[in-house]
């Protein structure tokens, strides 16, 4: 390569470096990254539900309800039907042992909770879940839909929904008593969207 040609290339390279400084280059790439991501971020709906990080591997599930009785049994059956009719899960109840999801109602005393649920999972897959309604605070004489609402809430946890701060959602963190007082007795759109996002 002639010396003159080599010099002109070197000058051109130096000129380019003078214009495209590292700082400008970083800024440009970040701007491009944001421009590419903006539509993605903007189109992502603001989730009005929250998840626990655990979900069953299938939406077809059986619940052992041998230890659920009276109105609690009727309302659990109704809650199950409500989930099946309004979400993509397919729940059934059985009076035999075997299912990893169990339900019970009893007088557990002054626990401070009207409903309780717990679950264990491995790498995000729910292995088992239990839910209880406490007759110390809620009885057969309470309104049918009040009892059902507690089941809907605890079933939501067992399926993988976490609490939300909106007092007009079944999964409200402040207690189902407030939700019921607010006139909510059925799964709301946010609750349904949460379940359908999981199953």
């Amino acid at each position, binding site marked *: 390569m002639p010396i003159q040609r080599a010099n002109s290339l070197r000058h051109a390279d130096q000129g380019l470096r003078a214009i495209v400084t590292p700082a400008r280059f*970083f800024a440009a790439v970040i701007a491009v*990254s944001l421009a590419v*991501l903006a539509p*993605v971020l903007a189109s992502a709906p603001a989730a009005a539900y929250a*998840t*626990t990080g655990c979900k069953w591997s299938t939406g077809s599930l059986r619940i052992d309800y041998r230890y659920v009785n009276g109105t609690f049994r009727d309302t659990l059956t109704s809650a199950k039907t409500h989930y099946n009719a309004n979400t993509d899960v397919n729940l059934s109840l059985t009076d035999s042992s075997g299912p990893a999801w169990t339900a019970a109602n009893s007088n*557990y005393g002054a626990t401070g909770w009207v409903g309780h649920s717990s679950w264990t999972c491995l790498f995000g897959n729910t292995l088992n879940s239990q839910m209880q309604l406490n007759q110390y605070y809620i009885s057969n004489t309470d309104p049918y839909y009040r009892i059902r609402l507690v089941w809907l809430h605890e079933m939501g946890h067992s399926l993988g929904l976490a609490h939300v701060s909106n007092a007009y959602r079944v999964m409200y963190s402040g207690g189902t008593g407030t939700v019921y007082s607010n006139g909510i007795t059925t799964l709301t759109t946010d609750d349904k969207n949460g379940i359908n996002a999981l199953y």
Partner: protein
Amino acid sequence: MFHTFKSQSLVIAIGVVILATATACTTSGDELGDAGSSMSRVRLYDSIEELAADSALIVVGTVESQLVTADIDPITDFTLSTLQVMAVVSGDRSFEGQAVTVRQVGFKEESASPEILDKGEIYLLYLTPSGLDGELAEQYYVTGANAGIYISVGNDKGVMNDERATFVQYSPQEGESLPSEVRLSEAAGSSGER
């Protein structure tokens, strides 16, 4: 040339970080938990006064032993913690030096119940009579499920009776407004007995 290569590598790295962050944001509702539990609480407390008013017994004590039992129905486990009472903040003073049984739903090994008391630890506990029948009537629940649990952090064991001893909230609950730290002198609320 080497300088340019370094710059490009750095830029690519920044881009990857931005993309990774954006991806995490879209799934921000998820947590990588192995277990969990949730309670639909009867009442959320706005102050230590409210919590104290709902508690028949407020004590400082150490968990000496624990037992897991399904004593109400076959599928619901409870942990029974034997608490050796070091000081009574409010309630029946005859419990001082005695043992109290504290009931909690779940058990520690399940890990779905992280709020279960730890053996050997010292706690300030707000307690409510169990409301159960028979021999279980002598037992207590923590007031407000787990709201009434404060754990001793950094206190010398010998000063548990000292009003300067401080205790830290064990299980904060969204929507509840209890202090994250309580001194023994404040534990019974403004109308405290101590």
